[in-house]
């Protein structure tokens, strides 16, 4: 019973399409044809990291820490009781879409420290979009997401994240001394991903 109803419905639909097609084919009317070429510009994409264009290919950028000179440590070097900062500057100039930046400061993989008992750590991270208020970011290893809306992108406003690396004098003299004798370079890896905000 049910199947018979379905069959009738399907047959009716096919018949209806066939009738419309036949009638349509024999109709006449005024007809004009034209072709419209719709021209649409593709929104541009351009992002620079500390002055280097990273739009087209993954890039590795070396950033030197700026060490606060306190007069007691050789300029440009870090030692117990001193701190250094570095800036990650993201420049959207040329882009025409809103952007999400995801920045990860890999605090678990700071390298170049001979004796890790020394207190060498990222102690603060702050970011600012040009013309806006400064924001504090987490330094516990979690990725930091920053959204730059279209108006800021079109204005070419940069996003600057300032990160502080600190060597705290915290009763770890033996480890600090070992690191001082060994010397070396402390490195902090940071990954930056800029994506179109959908």
């Amino acid at each position, binding site marked *: 019973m*049910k199947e018979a109803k379905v069959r009738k419905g399907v047959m009716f639909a096919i018949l209806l399409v066939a009738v419309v097609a036949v009638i349509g084919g024999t109709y006449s009317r005024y007809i004009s044809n034209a072709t419209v070429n719709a021209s649409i510009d593709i929104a541009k*994409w351009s*992002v620079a*990291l500390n002055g*280097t264009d*990273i739009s*087209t290919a*993954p*890039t*590795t*950028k*070396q*950033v*030197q*820490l700026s*060490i606060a000179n*306190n*007069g*007691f*440590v*050789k300029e*440009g*070097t*870090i*030692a*117990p*009781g*001193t701190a*250094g900062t*570095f800036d*990650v500057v993201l420049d959207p100039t040329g*882009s025409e*879409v809103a952007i999400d930046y995801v920045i990860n400061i890999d605090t678990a993989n700071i390298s*170049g420290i001979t004796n890790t008992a020394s207190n060498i750590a990222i102690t603060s991270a702050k970011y600012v979009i040009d013309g806006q208020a400064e924001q504090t970011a987490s330094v516990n290893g979690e990725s930091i997401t920053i959204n730059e809306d279209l108006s800021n992108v079109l204005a070419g406003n940069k996003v600057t994240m300032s*990160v502080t*690396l600190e060597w705290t*004098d915290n009763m770890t*003299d033996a480890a*600090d*001394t*070992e*690191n*001082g*004798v*060994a*010397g*070396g*370079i*402390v*490195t*902090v*890896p*940071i*990954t*930056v*991903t*800029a*994506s*179109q905000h*959908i």
Partner: protein
Amino acid sequence: MNKGSTRVKNKIFLAIICALLVGIVGTTYSRYTSSATAVASANMAKWNIELNGENISSESKNFNVTAVKKTGVSNNNVVDGKIAPGQTLVASVEVDPTGSEVAVDYLINVGQIQTQGFDTDSEISLSKVVCTVDGVTSEAVKTGDGYIFYEDLTNVLAGNKALVEAYVEWTDSDNAADTANGNAALSIVVPMQVTVRQHLASDGIATYSDSSKTLMVMSSEIQENGTLVLNEDITYDDYEEYPTSSGNVVSFEDNAVFDLSGNTVTAPNGALHYTGNNLTIENGSFNGLISSASGRYGIHLWNDEGSSVSTGVVVQNVSTTGINLYNTEVTLKNVTVTMPDDAKFYTVYGNVYSTITIESGTYTAGNNTTALFGYAGTDSTEVGNATADGKNPVDGFKIYGGTFNTNGKPFCLTSSGHIPPVIYGGTFDCDVTAYVAEGHNITKVDDTTWVVE
């Protein structure tokens, strides 16, 4: 057929279709994406220290150093290479910071003499530590941790070695023990520890380079054991802002050093009051601008806090137009005090609860000076009498050496309320026989020269 059942089935079917569509859309979406890696890096400041040619950067090492006589320090009444009561020998080590990239502190301590047979009632100890870097000699600051000497980053980076001289003195204090030790003729070992450590900003060294800060502000920023190094002359010549005797307090924490580094502080007489326990003021000049009463003291060591006293203050390698004390115990070493001719009063004056110990230097009166020295007791009616708290020294004014030029003015005030110094040594242009300490002699060299030894 149940209509409700059919509607439910249709809804489920529609939902499945929608879910599939969303899934398809999601997996085919694309967006602009770029990625990069930044590697932030910093060089570690290096640490490399040698003591007497051996590297002690990573490990502690023992050194045997023989203390020897030193001209001008040791007396010649004891055979060379030996120590006896009253004798001072000098043990020297050379510290080489070449290769280090941080400022350093040298901390010098001595421990108890453990030599078998030595009677420890004899008092053999460090009397001072002198350090010479790049031809400049300074006395290490005595602190609760020991003697501390600071070598700045410039000298470290230049690889300038520090000659550390420890003055080991056998104080004449216990005749029986001293005699027993003399009879035993021991070869003693004085355990001395030299620790070289990175100097931290938090240790308190600050450099006066911000002209927006007054000396009062800068001194307040110096922490305990810290040093304020002056990089330029300071002149406060505005009498309205710095009126005479107003007492702008230049207050230091304990064991601080005010190193003028060859510069001059100029201020109206009495405008600045320096205070601080174990404060050392060194290596520069003070110029007191004349007050309406014609005072021109360059240094006012005044503790204005009730009856509290600044103890252990040292002024060394300084020249000034006059020194005035109030509630301060001071030792003057290699100080040149010259009272200008237009100034009245005294070359050095000690008010209540002050003590003065002069070890060396040159002290000169001017044409209008009342007397070379004035030293008041507790108050005008209790001259020389100790108070219940013992703060008023009966013999609180002592002269151990130096050159003293009265230029015809009185040597010291002896009027009511003032007491004279006790003289153990020095060269004087007047007869000071009345003030020479027991056991010491005065010799008249000529009509203008008397020598006390």
